[in-house]
């Protein structure tokens, strides 16, 4: 089998993402932004970025395209992605663009696109935009329609934190003066997270990687294998909790007081429990998120909806069913609509601290109360054209289960479930297996891997 092709540039319904330089060029970013400006119309558009080195260059290109479409650009500088989304909605802008490749390595950059409510474009909006882009069907503003560049570097962050804190008992958290640790990967959350935890929530804070002018000191995605420094800090400085963000601070990972990095599904479950304890309601997660969610929801008699993988899918369903909380366990995304219908690491931090303050429990104690599942995640490359065969083989290998084809193939059996889906961004199959017993999980996982051969 040939090596998978490098996907250095991807322009599709999820926007535009690529390796900066030869692939993601300034002309491409500007053209895409001009298509966006054409689509949302000549009004205010909020633009911000994460801290990756190409952010400044790409943001200039984006501003160029938006101004050329006659938009009034409001530059909010380096801020978390959820901050942009909240600000777009708050000021009644036509839309927003975050220049961030989220958890991707530093050579990548991307544009995340938001509508006037600060939400990811839905599927139909996205395909309309992509058609505009491909047709080069741009609005070209005349000189007198071109607006000067505006900026607001203060209000967006403050507004974001205010919204989050209005949802929890901040006074109770402040009183506890939690001993917390933070790793912001020198990302867009660096300064805002310090303001949040130290100043607004009175934490006794030990922070690392909070210099937005420095490169990412670790792999950008916050995972157990990338958070060694934070875990070490928690143990050494005897912290009660450690928080880790990705470069655009929408994702959250948690280290407990023993220095163990929690499974992202468990983090979502803990936040969900904190939310449902205050306000029961429907829950939305993607198909590949752990069953621990169903168990927690059941404690509060709440319904769980499952969607295809992808923040936009989860958000669309949450809107439809008026969910109180949702997310995607696998990637550390916590979505709480009362703050904003988007992944937000600050909401997660606030609810966890609130739960700890309310119960007096440590993180590990809270986690221990969750039902235990054994999970295996994996990925295998596939050749185009072999996907159908592979999927049929998977189905044959797990007979008798309940089949869900909403996103790839998920087969639920008595012992547990397997989920196989093609990645949206790379020519790989993502595999997820979960059961109550480790040996069952291992057996199902190796059965899956053997099919991939």
């Amino acid at each position, binding site marked *: 089998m040939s090596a998978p092709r490098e996907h250095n540039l991807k322009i599709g319904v999820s926007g535009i993402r690529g390796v900066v330089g030869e692939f993601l060029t*300034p002309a491409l*970013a*500007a053209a895409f932004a*001009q298509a966006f400006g054409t689509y949302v119309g000549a009004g205010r558009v909020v633009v911000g970025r994460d801290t990756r080195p190409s952010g*400044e260059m790409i943001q200039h*290109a984006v*501003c*160029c395209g938006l101004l050329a479409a006659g938009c009034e650009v409001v530059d909010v500088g380096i801020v978390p992605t959820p901050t942009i989304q909240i600000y777009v909605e708050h000021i009644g802008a036509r839309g927003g663009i975050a220049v961030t490749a989220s958890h991707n390595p530093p050579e990548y950059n991307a544009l995340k696109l938001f509508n006037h409510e600060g939400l990811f474009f839905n599927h139909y909006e996205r395909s309309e935009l992509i058609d505009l882009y491909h047709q080069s069907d741009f609005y070209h*503003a005349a*000189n007198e329609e071109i607006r000067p560049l505006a900026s607001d570097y203060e209000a967006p962050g403050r507004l974001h934190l205010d919204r989050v804190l209005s949802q929890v008992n901040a006074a109770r958290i402040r009183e506890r003066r939690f001993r917390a640790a933070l790793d912001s990967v020198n990302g867009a959350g660096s300064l805002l997270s310090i303001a949040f935890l130290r100043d607004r929530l009175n934490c006794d804070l030990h922070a690392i990687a909070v210099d937005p002018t420095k490169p990412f000191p670790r792999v950008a995605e916050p995972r157990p294998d990338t958070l060694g420094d934070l875990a070490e800090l928690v143990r050494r400085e005897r912290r009660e909790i450690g928080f880790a963000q990705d470069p655009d601070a929408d994702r959250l990972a948690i280290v407990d007081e023993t220095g163990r990095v929690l499974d992202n599904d468990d983090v979502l479950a803990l936040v969900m429990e904190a939310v449902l304890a205050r306000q029961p309601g429907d829950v939305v997660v993607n198909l590949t998120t752990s069953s621990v969610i169903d168990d927690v929801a059941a404690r509060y008699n709440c319904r769980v909806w499952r969607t295809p993988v992808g923040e936009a899918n989860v958000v669309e369903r949450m809107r439809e069913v008026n969910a109180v909380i949702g997310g995607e366990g696998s990637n550390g995304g916590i979505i709480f609509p009362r703050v904003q219908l988007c992944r937000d690491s600050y909401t997660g931090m606030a609810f966890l601290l609130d739960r700890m303050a309310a119960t007096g429990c440590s993180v590990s104690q809270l986690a221990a109360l969750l039902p235990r599942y054994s999970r295996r995640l994996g990925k295998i490359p596939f050749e185009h054209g072999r996907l159908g065969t592979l999927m049929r083989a998977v189905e044959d290998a797990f007979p008798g289960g309940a089949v869900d084809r909403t996103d790839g193939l998920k087969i639920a059996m008595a012992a547990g479930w397997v989920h196989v889906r093609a990645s949206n961004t790379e020519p790989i199959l993502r595999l997820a297996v979960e059961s109550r017993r480790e040996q069952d999980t291992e057996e199902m996982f190796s059965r899956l891997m053997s099919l991939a051969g």
Partner: protein
Amino acid sequence: MRRALRISNAGLRGVIGNGLTATHAIDFASAFGTFLEPGPVVLGRDPRASGAMLREGVIAALSATGHDVVDLGMVSTPVIQHAIRRIEAAGGISIGASHNAAEWNALKFFGRNGIYLNTAESSELLDIYHPRKYAFVTYEALGRLREEAGEIDRYLDLLADAYDFDVLRRFRVVVDCCNGTSALILRRLNERHGCRFVLINEHIEGSQFAHEPATNARTLTLQLAPLIVPLEAHAGFLFDVDSDRVALATERGDAVSEEMILPMLADHLLPRSAGKLVITNLSTTALLEEVAARHGGSVVRVPVGRQAAMDALAAYRPEQVALAGEGTGAVMMARFRFIYDGIASMLAILTMMHERRQPLSEMIGSYSRYSMIKGEVPLNSRHIPALLMRLQREFPDGEANVADGLRIDWADRWFHVRVSQTEPIVRIICEQRGETPRALYDSVLDFVGRFA
């Protein structure tokens, strides 16, 4: 067809919205960043609203090709050119359409020395632009933006070295800034050196200029000339938006032909210059030859357009040349490193007034009178070669020059028929020592009209 976009050796110029787009600017700046040697690039812009948009694209493109950008903000083109020298930048870009209407904008490109690219260099730039193959760097090597305020003051330092403001501040001068960058410079000159420039149309404006920003006798009379007598000013000057061109009016409120600027400056500079050459184009007044001859100088005539002037400058040693310019009021002096500079030209003329102890009207009156008629005829490009050939046969007794269309000279008169670089029209320029060359002009116009 009225052309709304022009990509040529002179750079990139077009009407924003239906000609010149963000993509053009980014592509062209990417080509420029690829063309340049490593090093920072100086950037500045005139007040056109579209400048804010083009600026973003240019910064992105230069950064993507690995160049740090030093943004001077809103400044005149000469300020950008001097800054390139000062910081030893790899080059520079001026965003601004100088004398064009507000809906136009343009990118002008400068090399390492702050001088416009010559034809060989700009051809190379176009050859990089057209295949759109640019040398983008990886993310670690991207250029950074630095904003640099205060460059206007450094430019004033240069002016203060060349001119005696103790003397010049005695003049009361009315200036029509046409909402452009000259206002920023002259306001600062008033503050720093106590000059008495009375500014009109001095607010910076992005889309509604007080009037067409051309520098000529007609635009002088719109607002500036009538103010001169009531204000008891010694002179009036008018600048285009990026201050590289100038026009003037006398203390009596009379608009002076823009053709006079270059001969007057030649008269001022040739006696004090070792270089004796004056470079100008074929459409500029013959008064220049008369003035040059008086000081042992000689005139080099080249095709119309900045590019030809830059190539001519490159063909001589700098110390051979006293000044270069055109009849539009754009003049570059050796002292200012051959940078078109309307403000330096104005200060030179004020210095002349001081040295000669003469009112401006008398000084103008001391030159022989030449009369010029200009006109234009729309013409299909297909007919132009035949027109030019037959026109030359029609006037066999004159001396013909075919470097740019056709110019025919007689002892006391000449005409020049050339094709506009921006529109499909033929321009006719006809000049005679003394009286208006009406008969010659009419016969040329009639001849050209037959091909229309």
